[in-house]
């Protein structure tokens, strides 16, 4: 196993999440590689530190603060949920539960940045999806409206249904993401 791959599997190795064959390969690499041994020791120390932390207890006023607005019905659900979450985070901070994460941020800034980037991406997903939908709408705009117009034409008296089917059918293909039907050899 090369140094790069072993480095990527190290965290999973410490957590015991590798297959027997992978774990054996990492073990063999650790015997030869001082850098990876060092990284392995640090990861184990972090894991042990996290495992040794007591559960974070919220401050005494936390539940009272949380329950009071719910009982009163004066605060919208979204607001009290946010307040609750903020209070829990504050309590965890006071209890020192964030210490290992501070350590990760200082010692492994790349990991911290990657985690922040992942969170931002998740948060921005609806925005990105909306943009993609709008781009898609740009492409299908004319076909969508021609389709809807053709469907209405079908309800007018004496309009040829086979022609309506042709126009609406062509538009449906574009709406499904297929390429529009070309103007072929059957035209003059």
């Amino acid at each position, binding site marked *: 196993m090369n140094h790069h791959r072993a480095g990527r599997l190290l965290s999973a190795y410490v957590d015991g999440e590798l297959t027997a064959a992978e774990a054996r390969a990492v073990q063999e690499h650790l015997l030869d590689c001082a850098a990876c041994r060092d990284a392995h020791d640090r990861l184990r120390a972090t894991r042990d530190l996290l495992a040794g932390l007591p559960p974070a207890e919220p401050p005494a006023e936390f539940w009272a603060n949380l329950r009071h607005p719910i009982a009163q019905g004066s605060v919208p659900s979204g607001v009290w949920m946010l307040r609750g979450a903020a209070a829990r985070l504050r309590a965890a901070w006071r209890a020192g539960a964030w210490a290992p994460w501070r350590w990760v941020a200082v010692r492994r800034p790349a990991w911290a940045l990657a985690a922040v980037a992942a969170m931002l991406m998740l948060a921005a997903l609806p925005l990105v999806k909306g943009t993609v939908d709008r781009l898609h709408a740009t492409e299908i705009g004319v076909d969508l409206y021609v389709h809807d117009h053709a469907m209405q034409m079908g309800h007018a008296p*004496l309009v040829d249904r086979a022609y309506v089917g042709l126009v609406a059918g062509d538009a449906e293909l574009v709406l499904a993401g297929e390429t529009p039907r070309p103007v072929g050899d059957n035209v003059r």
Partner: protein
Amino acid sequence: MIRQAARAITAVLVLLVAGAAPAAPAAPRTVAPAAAAAPVSAADPSARTILHMALDAPRLIDYEGTKIITALRNGRMETVTVAESHKRPNLLRLEYLSPEDVAGRLIIDDGTVARHYEPALNMLFEDRSIQDTGGVADLTLLARNYDTALLGTDEVIGRRAYVISLTPHGTGVQRQLWVDRLTGTVLRSEDRDASRGLVLTTYFSRISFSLNLPQAYFRYRPPAGVRVVSLEDSMAGTDGGRMSPAQLEQAVGFPVLVPPALPEGYTFRGGAVSRFASLTSAYLRYSDGGNIISFFEAPAGSIGWPAMGLPVRVQSQPGRYIDLGYIRVLKWEERALRITAVGTAPSETLMLVAGQLITGREDLTVADV
């Protein structure tokens, strides 16, 4: 001995094939100028009676035939062949035979749902019906806004047909119909545009009546692994497309603009909400009984400009005009809305209406005719 027997069998087969061929000659591929072969006689019914006969025919007659459609598409005339079958009152089966890029396309419509199967892609589209749902009001509008005249009688694939013309009082497509004397079925039709001449012609090259077409012929069983795309809900729950602009405005959540003046004969027939992916558009339908102009309005940020078409100016605002052939599209921006007009009306008519839209009038309701 064997050779003689083979010749005899071949001769019998040739005779059988000849016997099975349609007795009537097929209509010519090139559409002749619209002129009736025989003038109107005193015994002929009125044009209005023939029109009603044509409108009633689908409820009374079953048929199966081959139809040739020639339509203006992207500046050229395109010819499409389709096997069309109808079983009363509202079962329709359309199987497109040529050109190659539509060959095999199948549409089966039961009057409620239209199922469109595209064999090359193994895709099935489920959509609203493309058949007339009994637009009595549109028929009244047609009678009000069109001059209906009987031009005489003509022969189409060996059958006698009345030739009637429907000419709009205002601008729009003029239609000529060849209506079968015995069944009322439209055997041939021609749509003419004032500026471009013939834009759409249809005719049956073969037709058979009074067949006992099995119900199963109008059912569709999708093949295994078919990808189903449903478009049925794109205008669902919008009061059957008869919402007023005020109701529409409430449903879409942005101001809806309406034209203060319409081309002659056109009346507001109702609104609906058109939805596709994240795009929500207000849809307004105007009709003169024979032609429709559709307006689609969406917030400017939600939809871009199409790549195709000619850049135009609408009331000094940028716009785009797309001539698809029989159907024309005009797109422009007004008061933070991107508006699209679609119709068969001449480009001048669309341009006239565009840029004159005003904020939704509360009193504008579906016209009762």
